[in-house]
Structures are given as structure tokens and as C-alpha cells.
């Protein structure tokens, strides 16, 4: 494990023949054993970054070292140190799960006996023992992702790349995959580089989060620190029947600036933090303003995204081109 140096990226750039820079000079460091969440909307440059770090796409300029090896000049060493589950769950519909694992293990040079042992172990680990001898064509989306993860783990890599591992999965499959990924990081000390467009995923899994938008990293820190940076929670109150909205605005306005709220409700960003909620309740009571509903909202990573880019994460990528795989191969 002497060379386990995580991921170091310096000014990495990728341009495609047509269109803007997909990745526009990013710098980042991932410590060994860390789970790094790379968060951004569709088309932000997440997948292009992963393709470069996994040596599948040469960078236009800049350098990166993965497990201490240069991604351009030491491709084979990089590939031997990493496992990757890439977006489309690239599987052969006519092979079974076990056959996939066996092929992968054979290419990694495991002996026939080791292949069998490793295959059984991984199938059990991702909960596919029962489906192991069925063709992948009949697998559900969640099963395919779990097989994909197992395949990435065949050679016990120290660094794992997961490109949008739960996109399109139902909530149950999603949380099953989450617990498997955290187990890998906590128990086996695997370094995980994970891209996602889901705030919750980054929040639950990542030790640190990098927010990428239009090819640039716009913020990077622990999820807690990022949220604290925006800082303050907000409170939203819905006036009770017969109570004027103005009265509520007058009371709440003492605690911070007004922000957009649900129809009919009033919301303010608390200048004094979450502790201010008690003061709000007391003030409403004192002034005799009755409310039907009162809610405290902690800042979310979406607020962070909004603050850094001026747009909301949900739907931010909709009007942009997808991550141009076609151009990448042209």
C-alpha cells in the first residue's frame, strides 16, 4: 500500500472538437480511504472527468495521478490499481452474472480456482447468489448495478470510480447500493470517487464534495462545511385562517431577510442560525399572530449550488448538451 496516494488532479482540461470545454481546468485531491462526491447537473463534465481519470479518454492538457501513477504515461499501472463502474451498466445480456465475473477475473489473471472463489464471494457480497446463473437480460436495474459493482471489485482495487451509480434506480435499490459503498470505504479502506446528480447521495456517502458546473469546480468541502458556508437555516410560516399575511411578514421580518416561499406562506433566512427558531415562536406568541404551520429548513446542497451558480441543481443540466460520448469517440 506504499503507493496508495489517492487521486491528485492538476489543471485537467478536456476539449471536444465541437462545443465548449467539457472539463475546464479542474484541480482536486482525494486522500486514500476518502469518499469523494463529484456533484453536478447533466453535462457538467463529471463523466468526462471520470473517463480521463480511468485512462479511457486522454486529457487535452493538465495532469493527474491516480494511486501515484500518471494517467497518461502509466496507463497500465493506473488500470491495475482501480476498479470502475461506468454509467450505462455495460453488460452482455446473453451472459449470466457468474460468467461476467469469471471473464473479468480471467482477464485479471486469476487462476481457475481463485476465479471461482472470488466470484462466489463477490456474488454473495452484492446479494446476487440466487440470480448468479441467470442471464443478465432478465436482471432489474438494481441487479445490473450491483453486478457492475462486483465486476469493478474483482481484482480488489484500492481506488473505486463510480459514475452515477444509482441514476434511474428505485429508492430501495439506491439505499442498498449506498450501504455497500459505505461498507467498502469504512471496512476495507477503499478510496471512492463518486459522481452523482443527486444531492442526497453526495450528502449521505461523501466525506468531501466537489461541485462541478460547466466544466469548473465551483465549490469543494465537506457537505457540512459547504452548507454552513451558506450558512443559515430558514423558517417558513403559513398564517392561520383569518390572520393576515402582512402580520406574519412583520414578525418574521425581525429575524432575517425574506426569501421565496410556498404560495400563501412566508419564509425568512434566519440571521441568527437555527437557535433563532425559539425566538420566532415566542415573538409570534407575543404578538398574537397565529400560524397554521411552522417549518425549519436546514440549508441543503441545492442551496449551495444555487448560491455558487445562480441556478438550482435540479434541472440545471436540462438545456445543455449531454456528456458528449459521441464526440469523444469521433
Amino acid at each position, binding site marked *: 500500500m506504499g503507493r496508495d496516494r489517492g487521486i491528485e488532479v492538476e489543471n485537467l482540461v478536456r476539449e471536444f472538437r465541437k462545443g465548449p470545454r467539457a472539463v475546464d481546468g479542474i484541480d482536486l485531491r482525494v486522500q486514500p480511504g476518502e469518499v469523494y462526491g463529484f456533484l453536478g447537473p447533466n453535462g457538467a463534465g463529471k463523466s468526462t472527468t471520470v473517463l480521463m481519470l480511468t485512462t*479511457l479518454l486522454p486529457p487535452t492538457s493538465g495532469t493527474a495521478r491516480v494511486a501515484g501513477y500518471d494517467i497518461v504515461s502509466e496507463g497500465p499501472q493506473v488500470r*491495475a490499481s482501480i476498479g*470502475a463502474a461506468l454509467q450505462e451498466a*455495460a453488460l*452482455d445480456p446473453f*451472459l449470466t452474472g457468474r460468467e461476467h465475473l469469471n471473464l473479468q477475473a*480471467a*482477464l485479471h489473471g486469476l487462476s481457475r480456482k481463485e476465479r471461482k472463489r472470488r466470484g462466489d464471494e463477490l456474488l454473495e457480497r452484492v446479494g446476487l447468489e440466487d440470480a448468479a446463473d441467470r442471464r443478465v437480460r432478465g436482471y432489474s436495474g438494481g441487479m445490473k448495478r450491483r453486478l457492475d459493482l462486483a465486476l469493478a471489485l474483482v481484482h480488489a482495487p484500492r481506488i473505486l470510480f463510480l459514475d452515477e451509480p444509482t441514476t434511474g434506480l428505485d429508492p430501495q435499490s439506491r439505499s442498498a447500493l449506498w450501504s455497500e459503498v459505505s461498507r467498502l470505504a469504512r471496512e476495507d479502506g477503499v478510496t471512492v470517487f463518486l459522481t452523482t446528480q443527486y444531492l442526497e447521495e453526495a450528502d449521505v456517502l461523501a466525506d468531501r464534495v466537489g461541485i462541478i458546473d460547466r466544466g469548473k469546480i465551483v465549490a469543494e468541502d465537506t457537505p457540512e462545511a459547504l452548507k454552513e458556508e451558506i450558512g443559515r437555516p430558514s423558517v417558513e410560516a403559513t398564517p392561520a385562517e383569518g390572520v393576515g399575511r402582512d402580520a406574519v411578514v412583520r414578525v418574521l421580518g425581525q429575524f432575517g431577510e425574506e426569501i421565496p416561499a410556498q404560495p400563501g406562506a412566508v419564509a425568512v433566512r434566519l440571521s441568527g442560525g437555527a437557535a433563532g427558531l425559539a425566538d420566532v415562536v415566542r415573538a409570534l406568541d407575543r404578538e398574537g399572530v397565529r400560524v397554521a404551520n411552522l417549518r425549519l429548513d436546514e440549508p441543503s446542497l441545492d442551496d449551495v449550488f444555487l448560491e455558487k451558480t445562480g441556478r438550482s441543481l435540479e434541472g440545471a443540466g436540462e438545456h445543455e448538451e449531454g456528456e458528449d460520448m459521441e464526440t469523444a469517440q469521433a
Partner: protein
Amino acid sequence: MSGSSFLTQVWALARRSIVRTMRQPAVIVSALLFPMMFFSINASGLDAASRIPGFPTDSYLDFAFAFPLVQASLFGAITAGSDLARDIESGFFDRLSLTPMRPVALLGGMLAGVVALGLLQGVVFLAVGLLMGVNVSSGIPGMFVLVVLTVLVALGFGGIGAILAIRTGSVEAVESAFPLFFVSIFLSSINLPRNLIEADWFRFVATINPISYLVEGIRSLVITGWDAQALFLGFGCAIAIMVLAIGGAAASLRTRVA
């Protein structure tokens, strides 16, 4: 972790390509059925052609037997090429590229699949042909040589399919090349011997079309026996196409995988 040996890799990939083909009965059935159907219709429809003055044999069935063998190789190549293109499209190829696999092993595995399908087709067609009354003049050793030549042809076409797949990475592009291949089979001496093609331009095209020599090599074993010149040209063309196509495919792969 040491990389596996080249042969282990080729074998693992070959097994995968054979297994996936065998699990698609529709592919197998159409690979066996369509060439034989076409052969049967063509051979009976053109039976009268053997009465053209100067026709080299009195059985058009024998004459036409090269057709399904060459057509089958073409089918096999397109199937293998589009399988490879699908692997690239789906990202399966990327997954394999992340292992210590040598890119050429992937090509080897794919071509092993082509050989397996080509062998199956050659043997089945020979059996059905004999039942239909095809008479192989060069006897049992000739049948063996015939299957070998067929497999070489399949490998050559398979290499071309691989180049298309690797260069375009698109199943659609590989499949749309199919009519082109098909046309080039017809623009050869497949239906009549070259000296009986009347239109000058057609005879010229058939003479420069290497498929004519593949066809004539296979055909000589059926209608003439052991014709050294035809076999030399047939094997020469087959091996040349194979070397160029597989070499080209390997070179294309090397530029794709850094």
C-alpha cells in the same frame, strides 16, 4: 497482480463470444437457413444456365455451391462486427479495456467466434449440399480443404467487420455496410464463369473483384477436382485479405486503446 497470459485471455473472450452466439438461436438459424434457401432457389432457377455452350459443368447445383459458403462468411462477419460495435456502444469494451487485457486478445476472441460459426456453417452446408446431390469432385480430402478455405474467407471478412466496428463504434454503421458486401458478391463470377459474362464492364469488375477468386477456388474443388491454379489464387486471395484485414483491425485497436 500479474496479468494473465495472452492465450488465457483469448480463450476467455472466445468462449464468451461463442456462448453468446449459441444463446441466440435466431442468429444461428438465420445463419444456416438463409444461405441455403438462397442457394436452393438460385441453383434451381438458373439450372438451365448449364446448357449455355461452353459451361464448365453439367450441374448448376455443383457450380453454385460456392455461393452459400461465401455468403455465410459474410453473414458471420457482419454478426461478429456488429457484436463488437455493440460492445463499444454499450461500454462493455471500456470495461474490458480497464483490465490488463491485451487489445489484440479481444480481436482474437472475436475471430475465434467467427471461426466457430464458419466451421459450423461449412460442415452443415456440406452435409445438406451432399444430400441435395452436390458432387464434390476432389473427394473427402477436397471437402476438408473446402472447409479450411471457407474458414479463411470468414476470417478475412471478419477482420473487415472488426475494422468497421472499431473505427465507427456503431452497430448501425456496421450493419449498413451489409448491402455493400452483398453487392460485391454478386459483382463476381458467382453466377456464371467469367468467360461467359458478356457485358465487358461486368467481366472487368468480376476480374478485379477478389471475391471471384475465392469463389473460383472453392468451386474448383467441387466441379474440377484439384486445380492448382484456382486453389493457389483462392488461398492467396483469402490469406491476403485475412492478413490485411486482421492487421488493419489490430492497428485500429491500438489507436483506440491508449
